[in-house]
């Protein structure tokens, strides 16, 4: 009996120590979290290395640039395929970063939306802001995908073919339908319109979506859809909030990349994913465009650097760096407004917008405002100045596609260099990149 008591006593001592509740609840790594607070969600949406990066392929398929044999030799296979419009940008490992990164961004947006929906406690300004940001990113992601992997809206809107996986939840193992062009665009518009009701006019940081950025993005989407009335409404709504322009005369041209970083014109900061080719001296500016700048036009001074071979390279990124800008800025909004005003018949007002912008782009006192009463001529002027202002910004692809529907502004493209050649006539084909082959390996493509 004595022994039994001893045993019990020892057992008591032993077991007594183990009653530490919560001992196993400590998180294993300081920097690792299960994101569930509003701060966590903001930090995820602030991850600009993912959220504010856009596809380089938008630019690669455009006619903003030229290249010669050494430039072609420098291209990675998939970039070469994009440059010569081969219709696919696959890589041997099956990883198409340009496609994946956008869907990763959409995952974060879905995740944020789902987490925010768990906060049941009434309305909160912070929660609304975050919800608006997430919706913006979701729409932004799908819009880039639509530009790359779907035919132009006007050619594709009546096609009833599923093309892009349209995800609506973060969960991985759900079957996802392939959405048609019209479906994707209506989803984009819906998200952006909802975001408008949630976001503050301006964000604390230019890397965060805001109401002005959402109007700006929506005006781009409207342009892509050929809805110039709405594009005008949104561009003006954005300009109503932010319309400050830099005076290019105050920018010091000595620096290689002279445009100030996060300057006041930027409505939403976005960067094209950078590859060695994106800042290569082999990446040459479209010579036709380059030749067209007036010598008093400061864009010529600030945007370009003549390399040692005497050829122009683009160094006028709004990112103030070698990284190419793809965000939304006031100059783009003004140009959109000008174009849409003219299309709406308000030629004079449209020209006023254009001249207001160009005034700040020329050497002080030297700019002679454009004047015309012909809406066709006005459009020609505005569209050409749009090219000259938004060069290397990734918006050219969007313009090429939408303008291919207007014979007077359409131009077939062709390229030949380094033993490779390619042609693209957007008016003839409903051109779009193929969904990566790897995606098609999954049954039903969208799983």
């Amino acid at each position, binding site marked *: 009996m004595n022994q039994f008591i001893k045993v019990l006593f020892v057992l008591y001592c032993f077991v007594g120590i183990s009653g530490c509740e919560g001992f196993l609840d400590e998180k294993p790594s*300081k920097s690792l979290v299960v994101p569930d607070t509003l701060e966590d969600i903001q930090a995820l949406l602030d991850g600009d290395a993912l959220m504010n990066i856009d596809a380089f392929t938008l630019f690669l398929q455009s006619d903003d640039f030229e290249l010669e044999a050494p430039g072609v030799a420098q291209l990675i296979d998939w970039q070469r395929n994009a440059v010569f419009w081969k219709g696919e940008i696959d890589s041997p490992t099956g990883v198409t970063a340009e496609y994946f990164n956008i869907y990763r961004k959409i995952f974060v947006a879905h995740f944020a939306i789902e987490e925010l929906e768990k906060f049941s406690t009434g309305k909160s300004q912070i929660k609304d802001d975050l919800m608006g940001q997430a919706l913006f990113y979701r729409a932004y992601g799908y819009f880039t995908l639509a530009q790359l992997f779907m035919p132009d809206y006007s050619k594709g809107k009546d096609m009833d073919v599923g093309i892009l996986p349209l995800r609506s939840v973060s969960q991985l193992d759900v079957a996802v339908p392939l959405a048609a062009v019209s479906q994707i665009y209506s989803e984009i518009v819906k998200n952006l319109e909802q975001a408008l009701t949630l976001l503050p006019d301006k964000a604390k940081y230019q890397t965060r979506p805001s109401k002005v950025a959402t109007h700006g993005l929506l005006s781009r989407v409207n342009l892509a859809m050929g809805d110039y009335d709405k594009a005008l409404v949104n561009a003006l709504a954005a300009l109503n909030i932010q319309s400050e322009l830099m005076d290019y005369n105050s920018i010091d041209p000595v620096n290689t990349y002279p445009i100030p970083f996060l300057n006041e014109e930027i409505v939403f900061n976005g960067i094209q994913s950078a590859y060695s080719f994106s800042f290569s001296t082999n990446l040459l500016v479209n010579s036709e465009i380059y030749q067209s700048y007036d010598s008093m036009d400061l864009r010529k001074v600030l945007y370009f650097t003549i390399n040692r071979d005497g050829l122009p390279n683009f160094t006028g990124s709004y990112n103030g760096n070698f990284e190419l800008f793809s965000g939304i800025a006031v100059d783009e909004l003004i140009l959109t407004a000008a174009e849409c005003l003219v299309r709406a018949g308000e030629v004079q007002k449209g020209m006023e917008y254009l001249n207001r912008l160009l005034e700040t782009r020329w050497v002080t006192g030297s700019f002679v405002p454009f004047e015309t009463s012909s809406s066709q001529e006005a459009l020609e002027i505005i569209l050409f100045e749009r090219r000259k202002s938004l060069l290397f910004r990734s918006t050219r692809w969007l313009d090429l596609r939408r303008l291919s529907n207007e014979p007077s502004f359409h131009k077939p493209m062709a390229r030949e260099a380094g033993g490779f050649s390619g042609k693209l006539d957007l008016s003839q084909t409903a051109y779009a990149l193929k969904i990566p082959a790897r995606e098609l390996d999954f049954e039903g493509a969208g799983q």
Partner: protein
Amino acid sequence: MKIFYTLLLYLGLAITPLIAQTSYTVSGVVTSEQDNTTLPGVSVLIKGSTTGTVTDETGRYKLSITTESATLVFSYLGFTTKEVSLNSSRSEIDVSLAPLDMELSQVEVLATGYQEIPRERANGSFVGIDKELVNRRVSTGILERLEDVTPGLIFNREGDEFEAISIRGRSTIYANAQPLIVVDNFPYDGPIENINPNDVESMTVLKDAAAASIWGARAGNGVIVITTKRAKAGQSFRVSFNANTTVAEKPDLFYNPKMEVSSLVDLHRELFERGNFNSNINSNNKPRVAPAVEVLLKARNGEISQSEADQLLEGFKSRDFRNDLDRYFYQPSVNQQYALNLSGSGNVHQYNFALGYDANSSEVVGNSNNRITLTQNNQWKLLENRLELGAGIYWVQSNNNTTTDLAQGWIYDRMTDEEGNPLAISRSYSDRYINSIEAERADLLNWRYVPLDEIGLLDNRSRTNDLRLNANIGYQLFPGFKAEVRYQYWNNQVETRNHSPQETFFVRDLINQFSEFDQAGLLTRRIPLGGILDHSTGRGDSHSLRAMLSYEKLTKTGNRINAIGGYEIKSLTSYQDAMRYFGYDDQLGLSSAVDPTTRFRRLYNNALATIPANQSHRGNTDRFISYFANASYQIDTRFNFSASTRKDQSNLFGVNANQRGVPLWSIGGGYTISEEKWYRFDALPYLRLRMTYGYNGNFDNRVSAFTTARYSISPSSTIPNLPIAAIMSPPNPNLGWEKIRNINLGLDFGSKNGKISGTFEFYQKNGEDLIGDIEVPASTGFFNFRGNFANTSTVGYDLNLNALIIDKGVKWRTDFFWSFVKEKVTRYDFTLPPANFFNTSGINPYVGRPLFGVYGYPWAGLNPENGNPMGFLDGIPSEDHRGILTSITPETLHYAGPGRPVHFGSLRNTVSWKGFEFSANISFRLGYYYRRSSVSYNNILTGTFEHADYERRWREMGDEMVTSVPSMPSVPNSFRDAFYLNSEVLIEKGDHIRLQDIRLAYSFQESGLAGGIFRNLSLYSYVNNLGILWKATKDELDPDFRTTLPKRSIAFGVNWNF
């Protein structure tokens, strides 16, 4: 619930069979004649009967005698059998047994980290590495000493650095693949380099369920138990001293087959002429270009004539940077090791004290590391041995000093001119840029990189202090029943001070990069003059506590019950902080602050950049609670049954609470056939059959049931100092632990006089619910998804034979093992796309094939027209590489065979004569394949110094008959490269036999020359990494070491025992 669980466990184990007997009793202690240590487990039999007993763990026996006069037979493996006649007047009989042979005198006791089990009672699969084998090799580290002496254990020489060792194959895919390392009863948290091999008494490798399930969820990859030296009871005061020096050759920089330097110069010229370097030449970043390109550019610009350029280029062809590296930067490395050990024991106290010092010079001049180890261990036995106390301190300090970084340059750069004066070479920027900026801005710091001037400049020191404190208390509550508490505190502190003085290129470069000139040409330095100090500190603390009850009972009929049970709790926290100081003056201890958030314009490219601040913090916490129990029941000396169970819980990230714990268990049985009365096979007087079955576990702490994200913050991000989070893993709510089912069948045998002994074990390991990746559409935002998607099955055997072939004046001993391991994936919920079969990890799960398989694209030769590599597209030879790669399926890929040895083993012969002892270890690895490297044209086209196969490339029609190296394409083609580099034609057989090492020693015995000064003195020499004796492939490289060859080394040492 916990209480109930534990209680039930203890009570269940405490059942004592009661057997009554009427007679007189004899008792006593059995000790070893050699050192008076008590011998547990000695069989005590009444002659001519089956009645008998076995001594308990303190060497005591107690036996009831019913006959008036009897003779007791004391027998014990490795000792001479002794017979003692009884008469009723003697009831206390102490016996001492003489060892059979000095060499075989050690009773093999296997440590599991929880208890020590004599080999004869172990049902599981253990490999014991005794002191002699531990000390056979000469090395700074301890784990190397297991290599080629441990059946079933292999060192993986290529691939995953976190899987240096595999025990019986790999039973996991992505989870932790390292065996658990236990040092003195607790899992070791520190770096294994901190264990001084001289402090190690023995090692035990636990391979199967019974052996390892006591370690539960961490035992899936096997367990290596390291036991440090202890004084033995009754041992007199001893001093031993061991010293050795190892010299290893310089690395062979020409080992990797590379193209000719002259070919590279020609290539650079060709690419230059094609304009491929234009982008770099013109780049705003002013990158360095190859010297040949600079020369050709000068010629193009008319600064030098074409013939001058040609002449310079010819000159480049005879240079080789590797020769300069070999001459100025490399040296033979020298490792010195000294170890002093003092031990002894008194009536109640045993102690051991050891001091070790290792000093190693690196293969790079000016770099070295050293290690000091100090250990002290005390054991007390009080209250008539009922109370045991122990305390140990293990302190290690290791220092790593780096003064020199290896020089970097083009292969035809040179470090000196003809007179041997140091030369500058281009490091980051083009010569043109450096020349012009130097001429323009005299007030910049010297921006040249002179490799020879960099030697010895750095002052990088890292110091690790590692402290382990052990305490244990055990109390025998009543005979056989013991309570024990063990506690370990571990603390590891690492401080790294990397000081780069201003003279180093790194600092001069950074300061110049952030130098600005205003309109007036005035210089502003954004980084102050002075050195750069990168300082980081790290600290780890762990507390481990184990409470254990053990019960041991020898019944009067000679049956034995052993049981242990208890629980363990552990908390490990660690953190790391890093900081960079600029303008550091080591003399005065001053530094200045910089502005890390403002974007400055870098001088060389005028691009905005922030000063790299290198500020970081990390912290981790691991927590475990485990419950364990283990019991064995032995029926006389013939049958032994054992069972164990363990449950582990941890704070693994985001694992649903109810899935945190995993119960694992094992059962086992042993049958000593030779103890049967009917056993008459004299040639094999010892024969034992054993079997175990059960589950081990494993976990992957990188997966989680929830979506996880990692925070970061940086002054250089777009919005400085804005906290940013990035998604790390997608949610997986159904995640479970990995389980490994183990079956082990073993046969132990020993011949007459112990001349031949051995073990044969057959096993099957089935990994169940292993964590695997399935690919998911990229539209999910992920490429793959990790979950319990796989099963594997491993079957194999380990044969271990030890033979004393000649046992006369000359002794010849042979130790041999042969391990066979065949792995197979038996379930994988997804068929991976073919591109995954060529990943660098070598892991490519495919049902029916090993985890590590070597695959290749089927090869259709080179196209005779253009030298393009051809594969098959729809069964027809084709050079549409994109088509081939996208249309191929895992079924149509060529499967060569396993990527890891299926057979491996070693043969160790030891010949001794008088004081001399010679031993040599030959190891072999068979039945596997590897993919050799070849030339990548994507690299060639950027002007990279590539593989030697470039010289054997197809150049003209007909070459396809003699070579399989494709022609050079004009533009990079990733698909063509990927096809060739992963094609079947590059697969080689890995089978080989190597002479691993040779050891020669001479021992003086006490009776020898200088009587009294020592008990034993031995001189030894050890030669390691001798080389390959035979290999199956014609490929010139060592199949197991395809990037660098292990360096041959020779060691001399002395071991002195007082």
